[in-house]
């Protein structure tokens, strides 16, 4: 139980310092909206085109936003060596990782909830038809990105070219999750009938989340204790 309290304290700390400085929210939000805008110039999509790749388009924006948010996650600990204090505290590496992952998840999910209506306006998509399933799938996809992303942020925090290494390491690993969440979002976004393999992609996404959350929690201690 204390581990969850520790994780909650760290998540609260991360969110508070993020909302105070807004160093990554503003840039990520504006970046996402600009990309959505550019996509509409690039494709000028008609409704049936949206039905075909709306989910993929949305998730490309979210993937980039994810990389930006997650990059700051452990980088925030570098000034004043706060990472040393956190690792020497009774909080275990796992709760430290979980706290940071939850903070990234909350930030990312917030940005997605803002981007969704913007996407709806730009591409005149009535995205709220199956709203709750859509939000559920977005949450699953966002957790996969937050979890793997935060872990790799911890892995690459001391590297010289961290901003470059993190996305390059993160995206190939996330391909199964991104692939399945794109498929799911695509059908849910435009309220199409559930295709036969909807359940398959959902199971894959949930399986990916479970596997990588356990792996990350189990290996967090190894990479945080240098």
């Amino acid at each position, binding site marked *: 139980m*204390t581990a969850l*309290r*520790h994780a909650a*304290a*760290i998540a*609260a*700390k991360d969110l*508070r*310092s993020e909302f*105070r*400085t807004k160093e990554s929210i503003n840039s990520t939000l504006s970046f996402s909206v600009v990309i959505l805008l550019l996509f509409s110039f690039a494709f000028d999509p008609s409704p049936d085109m949206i039905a075909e790749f709306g989910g993929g388009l949305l998730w490309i924006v979210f993937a980039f936003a994810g990389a930006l948010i997650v990059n700051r996650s452990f980088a*925030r600990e570098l*000034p*004043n*060596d*706060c990472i*040393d*204090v*956190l*690792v*020497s*505290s*009774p*909080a*275990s590496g796992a709760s430290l990782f979980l706290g940071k992952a939850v903070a990234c998840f909350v930030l990312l999910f917030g940005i997605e909830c803002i981007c969704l209506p913007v996407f709806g306006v730009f591409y005149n998509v009535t995205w709220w038809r199956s709203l709750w399933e859509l939000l559920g799938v977005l949450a699953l996809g966002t957790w996969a990105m937050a979890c793997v992303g935060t872990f790799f942020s911890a892995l690459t925090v001391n590297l010289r070219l961290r901003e470059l290494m993190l996305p390059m390491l993160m995206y190939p690993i996330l391909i199964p999750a991104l692939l399945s969440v794109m498929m799911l979002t695509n059908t849910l976004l435009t309220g199409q009938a559930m295709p036969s393999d909807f359940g398959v992609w959902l199971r894959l996404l949930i399986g990916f989340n479970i596997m990588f959350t356990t792996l990350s929690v189990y290996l967090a*201690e190894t990479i945080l*204790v*240098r």
Partner: protein
Amino acid sequence: MSAPAVAAAGVWKYFGDYPALRDVRFDLQAGECLALLGRNGAGKTTLLRILGGLSGASKGGVLIDGGEVRASGTRARIGWLGHSIGLYDELTARENLRTFGTLYGVTAATVSDWLERVNLAHVADSPVREYSRGMRQRLAVARAFLHGPRLLLLDEPLTSLDDKAIALLQGLLTAARAGGATIILSTHQIREAMELASRVALLDRGRLMHFGERTAQMLDDPGYLYRTYGGEA
């Protein structure tokens, strides 16, 4: 005889093939203050980080009150004050201490009490970014002592502190020692360290050259220790 407060049992630490620490072995009883001396790169910070559970020993290990250092129960009794202050600039003093307090299971009342003791209560709710150097250091000292640690690890604390902060720190250290806490501080200022220390350890290229009582002779002549035990200059 209870387990020693700190027991280093043959600690080795490799960076690749390079042995940063070679078979460091010592026992420290509760209430003692160990001054860890040595040139830059002798392995002082590496040893301190292993004692604080910040990094793992390649061979051998460290027992704090007989317990494994990575066990979270043990770390609840350790206070860490590193080179830099270890606080978040964008958060206020109270928020900083409150966050670390939750990790150590410390109540809000203790947090405000500590803010009083380091007389930062008047600025408790403005971000640390706006603090002067002295105020930041005093807050760092408050963070290290917040949870009443039984073992205090201080990595060259005296170099970055201003005199008011040093006075505060020395007062707190002597009070902590009186309360039975153990202190290990690594430093270059031999004079200040000698006054506080009851035992002295000298590291040279990862090897523990000397570990023993702090004699009066060491206090008067700071160079004595290096000449007699420090290996070639």
